[in-house]
């Protein structure tokens, strides 16, 4: 294999890095989205400093208080400080979104690479993936949480599993097209080990669409987390996730509407920002992906 081939495979990567920065400069919506996400990430990182109280400290005697000097956003039905729960909620929701995205993309990438290259494995794995896709994701997630007990880990796992098949399909389609490229065929012909081929030639081609896909998974993970809480199969109630807060807040919406509205806004704005950023990245990194079907 010649160096020229290597370079042929690599340049897009360099350009893309620059492209992302240029994008933020030229696309104000994407810039705004990135700024929003950055501040939410900041809030999540410095939650202990921003919070005024322990987000799990109970005080039933001062429940459902309106906003005051002590409690910037009031208290919830157990007397917990809503502002502190909001700040820590950023941490939980960002964790759920990021963990689900990373886990789904990583496992999907791994499965997809092998599926695309090991021919006998392909039909088996793809039937399993088709099967998983045929089960409605929310139902699969509720069932997984119900049978394995509610904890942050199980909720993340339950959200991740239904997302994996889509990633596998995406990676496999990239692998299938790359496999036929002359430089890959050449690498195979000269006996380059499979892992090396995958790493050098295939993975770089998967990265742009996967980054885009990861943002969408992160957004839908945060949404699914809220839906699981709504259906009573979410994270344990003492954990201050925005999804939990929305689900709890809805029960007393008529009495303390802000307890639903604040986390609801936080959730919607974050997901909106992630989605907008994802769209901008997609347009920039991989215009072809825009028309690839079934990406969501």
């Amino acid at each position, binding site marked *: 294999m010649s160096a020229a081939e290597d370079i042929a495979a690599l340049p897009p990567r360099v350009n893309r890095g620059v492209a992302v920065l240029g994008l933020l400069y030229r696309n104000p919506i994407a810039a705004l989205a990135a700024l929003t996400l950055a501040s939410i990430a900041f809030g999540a990182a410095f939650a202990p400093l921003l919070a005024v109280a322990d987000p799990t400290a109970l005080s039933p005697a001062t429940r459902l208080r309106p906003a005051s000097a002590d409690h910037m956003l009031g208290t919830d039905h*157990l007397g917990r400080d809503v502002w502190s729960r909001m700040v820590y909620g950023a941490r939980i929701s960002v964790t759920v979104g990021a963990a689900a995205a990373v886990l789904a993309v990583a496992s999907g990438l791994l499965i997809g690479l092998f599926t695309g290259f090991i021919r006998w494995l392909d039909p088996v794995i793809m039937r399993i993936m088709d099967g998983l896709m045929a089960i409605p994701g929310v139902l699969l997630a509720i069932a997984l949480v119900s049978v394995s*007990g*509610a904890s942050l880990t199980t909720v993340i796992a339950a959200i991740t599993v239904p997302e994996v098949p889509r990633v596998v399909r995406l990676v496999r389609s990239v692998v299938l097209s790359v496999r036929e490229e002359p430089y890959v065929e050449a690498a195979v012909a000269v006996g380059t080990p499979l892992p090396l081929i995958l790493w050098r030639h295939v993975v770089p081609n998967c990265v742009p669409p996967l980054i885009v896909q990861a943002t969408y998974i992160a957004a839908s993970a945060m949404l699914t987390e809220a839906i699981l809480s709504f259906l009573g*199969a979410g994270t*344990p109630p*003492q954990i201050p996730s925005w999804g939990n807060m929305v689900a709890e807040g809805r029960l007393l919406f008529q*009495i303390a509407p802000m307890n639903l509205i604040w986390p609801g806004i936080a959730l919607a704005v974050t997901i909106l920002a992630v989605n907008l950023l994802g769209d901008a990245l997609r347009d920039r990194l991989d215009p072809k992906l825009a028309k690839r079907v079934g990406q969501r």
Partner: protein
Amino acid sequence: MIRTTTNRRQLLGGAAAAAGLAALPRGARAASGGTLKVIPHASLTILDPVATTGYIVRNHGYLVYDTLFAQDANLEVQPQMASGVEISPDGLTYRIGLRDGLSWHDGSPVTAEDCALSLIRWGQVDGMGQRLFSYVESCTHDGTDTIVLKLSRPYGLVLQSIGKLSTNVPFMMPKRFAEYPTSQRIGADEVIGSGPFTFNAAEFRPGARVVYERNPNYVPRSEPASNAAGGKVAHLDSVEWINFPDPNTQLNALMTGEVDYWEQVPADLAPIVAGTRGVKVQNFNPLGNMGMARFNSLQGASANPGVRRAITRALNQTDLLLAAVGSPEFGEPCFSVFPCGTTYANAAGSDFIAEPDLEDAKKILAESGYDGERFVVLATTDIPVQTNYIQVVVDTMQRLGINVEAQAMDWATVLQRRASKNAIDDGGWNMFVTWWEGADLLNPVVQFALAANGDGAWVGWADDPQIEAMRTEFAEAQGVDAQKAIAERIQARFFEQNYHALLGQFFVPTGFRDNVSGILEAPPFFWNIQKT
């Protein structure tokens, strides 16, 4: 409005029955008719009131089935299907006659044989029934309309057992179902009773809708209705239970008049419901409910009475009720194992919970020899009252210095997990939280939560021969004063052992449209209700 039984019986006599009913002047039922749309507190899936103790199945049972005896609003036992009872001078033979005109929903007459078999089936399952039947030599009939109950030894609570108000209620069923083994459940097309309403099997949508229709052949007693006793006059043409998965939708539906009756309004929402034009809120269950944190007295730290006592000492019912119920109007601290305001409620041994003291609790914990062992709480996530209770209980235990591990799970999983007697590291548990209706806690015998006979007791498997001996003593005692004295001793002993901690007495109000009247005291009964 209550028609006399004589009139009804004449109308129903012979072949003229149908014509007679048709001839009944419409004016005689001026205020009756219509459909009452109800939001029940849970969805009905199991239809056999003997197969399970769920309150929703009991409420369903009261619509469809009838009972031999029943408790009135003063908790006195009155005859219902029974015409009367004849007790032999030695107190060993009870001859219970059936009143005239009783028939099953399929048209066949109710016989003493049907009823005797129904009692036997119930007696195999219900705690109070099992106790009764341990005194029963035979439960038969005399071939006509009299049930004959022969005892081997005298027993004071025969009629209190047969006239039990709450779950499992001894409902009467036709022989063919009363002969089912208790492991076999009555199916959806087998719901045939003799109660004031019939079950519409074709319209049954488990989890969504249950429809009951007026039983035109029901003969009510002539006395006025009082709780489960007296004349069960069905004014409504039908009662429709509609299940709502979402509490906000429940509230909205009552406010817009899409339903007429919301069985359990969350206390926080009561002021909003009450403030809506055309809607009323009222508590129909003066006995209320009692919250409990049940300990596993076999395994781990909760097997140590000192640890149980320390936790009980630390729990603050006022805080617990605020978290679980919200409005103080609907929660009342109660420091007796019997519902406050009822016959056997007392103060024996209750000093240490009446004034919770975290510091003192810490001392008790230190003396108990607790070594920081993991304490597993089965934390329900899908029942708000329990979820809120648990958060305060766990918070209190953490401040007390217990190494709490709250494992979040849905109620179905709690029911599975709590059945395990395994060690804590092997799927075992130390505590779960639930509540009982006051009607199930009225005395030491009816109260299954007090049972302390090991394997036969409620999960947690309290094992205390002293308490069991006193419960038997209570059952055999004559006269309320003697019984009260025993009840106090039982409570004093219980507060030494603390097989569960009491979390306060709370009341769940009912919301209804203002054109609905005649609602009786709970458990929700649907006869006597009128909708105009």
